[in-house]
């Protein structure tokens, strides 16, 4: 296990191994998403209060969960890169930011679309909605900071610190509906005392959440592999893979692949 992880941390092996994973990850994503959509949009009965509008939940809730998960993932990989100087961790953190931002945006907009008919408003400044909006700004700030610093190591370090500092927002988002009076309702699925959602409605939610999770890792690996090629363009293995010439690269462009 450790030997395998260690191998994954090496750019060359990472590139080779994950290239084989991606098609399978797409298959798994679809295996979760197709039944999730079928059960959620067709089989699940309408809600006793919200009618069919509650089906927005099957994209809104997984998107919101992913917005939190990806931020934690970004802060943790960023922290690993910061402390252990690990190039692969830097690349993972940087590559997850735009995906996380897009999920946050999706959660906010589908929430607004759901809120209009049910609450009677597109937007309110309650603690849940405001903290989720701050999360979007954190993602955008992270992306901007990465883009503003030319040197990859410095950029990764600065962005990792921003991600770690911003991670205090994550428990605030999660517990906002319990700590304060909010328009947004309390947690449904993580409530342990009694079932707050009927199983016929819960299953599609879990399937969609799993689909979004696998989807995230799939597109993350796609991004990370490209980013890796760019950062490692001076390395011999990249040149051997993509260079047109048959002659060996000259010594000053060589870099030890570890």
């Amino acid at each position, binding site marked *: 296990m450790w030997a395998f992880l260690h191998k994954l941390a090496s750019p060359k092996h990472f590139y080779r191994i994950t290239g084989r994973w991606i098609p399978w990850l797409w298959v798994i994503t679809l295996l979760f998403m197709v039944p999730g959509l079928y059960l959620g949009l067709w089989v699940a009965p309408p809600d006793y209060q919200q009618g*069919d509008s509650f089906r927005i939940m099957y994209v809104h809730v997984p998107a919101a969960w992913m917005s939190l998960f990806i931020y934690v993932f970004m802060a943790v990989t960023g922290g690993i890169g910061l402390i252990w100087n690990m190039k692969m961790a830097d690349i993972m953190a940087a590559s997850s930011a735009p995906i996380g931002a897009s999920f946050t945006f999706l959660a906010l907009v589908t929430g607004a*679309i759901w809120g209009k*008919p049910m609450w009677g408003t597109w937007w309110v400044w309650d603690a849940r909605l405001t903290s989720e909006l701050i999360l979007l700004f954190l993602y955008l700030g992270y992306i901007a900071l990465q883009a503003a610093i030319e040197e990859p190591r410095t950029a990764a370090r600065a962005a990792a610190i921003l991600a770690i500092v911003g991670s205090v927002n994550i428990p605030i988002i999660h517990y906002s509906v319990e700590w304060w009076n909010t328009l947004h309702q309390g947690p449904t699925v993580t409530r342990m005392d009694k079932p707050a959602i009927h199983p016929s409605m819960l299953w599609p939610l879990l399937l969609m959440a799993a689909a979004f999770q696998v989807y995230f890792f799939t597109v993350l690996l*796609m991004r990370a592999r490209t980013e890796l090629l*760019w950062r490692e363009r001076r390395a011999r293995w990249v040149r051997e893979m993509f260079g*047109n010439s048959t002659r060996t*690269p000259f010594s000053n462009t060589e870099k030890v692949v570890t």
Partner: protein
Amino acid sequence: MNWQQWFDMGGYGAYVWSSYALTAIILLWNLITPIFRRREVLRKIQNWYRQEDRLS
């Protein structure tokens, strides 16, 4: 349940379908941008290698 009823979503069709359409757009965007970025990167590094080969 027939198709007409299904698209209507009990009167919430516009809200439900616009949410799912936006989700589809976001998921496709996350898929397409890395593909284009990959093409761009490959083109760049191949140009870069060619230039170096010429210089040597």
